[in-house]
């Protein structure tokens, strides 16, 4: 039981990081960015390729695994940030004043395009994180596993949890403590008014996309580490789950996305533990349904006036 809670917490914190990207974009543009999962996939590829290159060059052996992971992470964040920025400029900004269905279709189109682009460029077989090297084993191997009572904690669990918690705390502080964060909150309340008081709305929207994409890149690398591979279609299911998490927590709400992601991970893991793996995908959606029946706007969703 406790073991499944830990597994759920780790998986859930990855969902939470992805869900933040959905919820931030929705908060500002009222747009579901369906290409978010693909940005995650691009980030995962970037991290695996960079880390594999470092392994091949012997840098992981000489410099250590963690600095190389940091390099891979930064590379992934850079690449994904660039993708997120371009995505908004190419696919969403020209449609900003179009009927709300148009950017949605554009998002789905970009998702299909990115998936097939990576499939053609990188092949349809998965690329593996080079997890079989000795130096990787020295850090993430079973010798470093910690047994806490009945719970087995692996170094990878700790790495993922710590990184995700740091990012969540950092994002929360950024949105609530900095000037740019304040501008983001203002833009999400009312774009026109924010523009009138001198906020550069375009810039705020670009920043939102870049931050969301950078978080997705981190999630992508963590997923690649966790599942040991990156594949062109990995973004789809991860994106669906994170979108569900964002709705569960109340879309548009940062704390809601974090809470929703972790709840979703826990529901899946505990469900598998007690009811078996056969209906794994069902547990998450049953929780979503139950929550939406009681709280239609999600757990922390705010009641806002209908825009008709």
């Amino acid at each position: 039981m406790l073991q499944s809670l830990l597994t759920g917490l780790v998986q859930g914190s990855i969902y939470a990081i992805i869900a933040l990207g959905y919820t931030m974009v929705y908060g500002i543009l009222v747009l579901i960015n369906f290409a978010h999962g693909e940005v995650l996939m691009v980030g995962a590829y970037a991290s695996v390729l960079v880390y594999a290159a470092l392994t091949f060059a012997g840098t992981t052996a000489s410099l250590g695994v963690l600095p190389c992971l940091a390099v891979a992470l930064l590379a992934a964040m850079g690449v994904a940030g660039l993708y997120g920025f371009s995505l908004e400029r190419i696919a969403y900004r020209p449609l900003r004043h179009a009927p709300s269905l148009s950017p949605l279709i554009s998002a789905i189109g970009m998702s299909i395009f990115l998936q097939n682009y990576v499939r053609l460029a990188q092949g349809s077989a998965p690329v593996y994180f080079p997890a079989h090297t000795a130096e990787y084993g020295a850090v993430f191997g079973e010798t470093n596993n910690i047994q806490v009572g009945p719970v087995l904690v692996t170094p990878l669990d700790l790495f993922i949890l710590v990184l995700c918690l740091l990012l969540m705390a950092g994002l929360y502080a950024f949105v609530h403590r900095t000037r740019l964060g304040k501008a983001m909150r203002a833009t999400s309340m009312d774009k026109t008014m924010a523009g009138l008081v001198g906020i550069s709305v375009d810039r705020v929207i670009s920043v939102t996309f870049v931050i969301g994409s950078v978080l997705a890149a981190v999630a992508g690398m963590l997923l690649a580490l966790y599942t040991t591979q990156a594949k062109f279609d990995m973004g789809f299911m991860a994106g669906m789950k994170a979108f569900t998490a964002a709705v569960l927590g109340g879309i548009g709400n940062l704390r809601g996305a974090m809470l929703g992601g972790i709840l979703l991970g826990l529901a899946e893991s505990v469900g598998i533990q007690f009811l078996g793996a056969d209906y794994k995908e069902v547990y998450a959606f049953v929780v979503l349904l139950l929550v939406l029946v009681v709280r239609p706007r999600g757990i922390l969703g705010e009641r806002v006036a209908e825009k008709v």
Partner: protein
Amino acid sequence: MRHLAIAAASLALGFGLAACKAEPGKGGGGGGAAAGPVKIGVAGPITGGQAKNGQDLKEGSLLAVEEWNAKGGVLGRTVELVIRDDEALDKNATTVAQELVNAGVVGVVGHFNSGCTIPASEKYHEAGIVTITPASTNTYVTDRKYADVFRVCGRDDQQGRTAAYYVSDVLRAKRVAVFDDKTSYGKGLADECAKNLEGRVEVVIREGFDATERNFRPYLTKLKDANVDVWYFGGIYEQAAPMLIQASQLGIKAPMMSGDGVHGYQADFIDKVGAAANGTLTTFPDTTANPGYAEFVAKYRARFDAEPGPYAIYSYASAHILLEGVKAAGAADGPKVAAAIHAGTFQTPLGPIAFDDRGDVKALDYYKVWVIRDGKHVLSGPK
């Protein structure tokens, strides 16, 4: 900017359209045009996580067809391959099958995965097209007793039984977990294994997860708590690889046992997993013991400059048998070819092959158990 978006969207749409482009041709009939080439279909996972299987299927068949064409083709006509990709997804299988029916093929080498072969062969059967699968081991493939469906490999009841007896009698295991990937192949094989374990070894976990699953920790932590002696996985190497890496990270010492879906993938499985693959047990025939094996491998290497996977030789043999059937029937006509294949005995690198009334290879109960040592499959039983 708007034009860019439109261009991007239409490009994305273009991918979808290209995938469902239909071949213009006659609707069905195994006959093929009276003149022109004899068309043979090849269908399997050409791309996707099992692309190695698709490569074996494609290149094995191609090697056979090129040899026939070098000798002047069959019935005085050249042989042409029509290759289609089902990505190992059963939902694509019938679409691919319809394309091959429309293309007017006389027979199909494929599909690879049982979950694809079963629905696709229904279409081929309706259209009077011969199906020879080199790799689908699910019992149902031939248990339908269609006169035009054959398989060149073994059956899952055979390999499930071999695995179960090895677990109980050689490993003398007391507690076992059985997982599968919920596909026709994986679940069918795991069910056969579990059925044969019943009453002799305690099966403490019996579960299935999606074939797309890549995070196995929830199942593996359960497995670790269950303290099993060995765990069985009915599925394919693309899942077995991440599963074994994650199992080693969790410190699971019990070995995994699996079937033909995990055997023989050096670069795509053993090399990816590294040391964690050692100790893994698989069931697969000893193809290397066949007299024609070395010659086949030499030819394959010379032609493709690559190492053949486990099912390349089966694909080669399947294409060869299909063309021998066409030759014996004297016409590129499905039902006649099927009858000729039932009647004949064919010399292949796998030895002489004849089929029983179900379409299974006669007297082919030959699964062996292998264990991975130092990154190589080593023959281990049955003793």
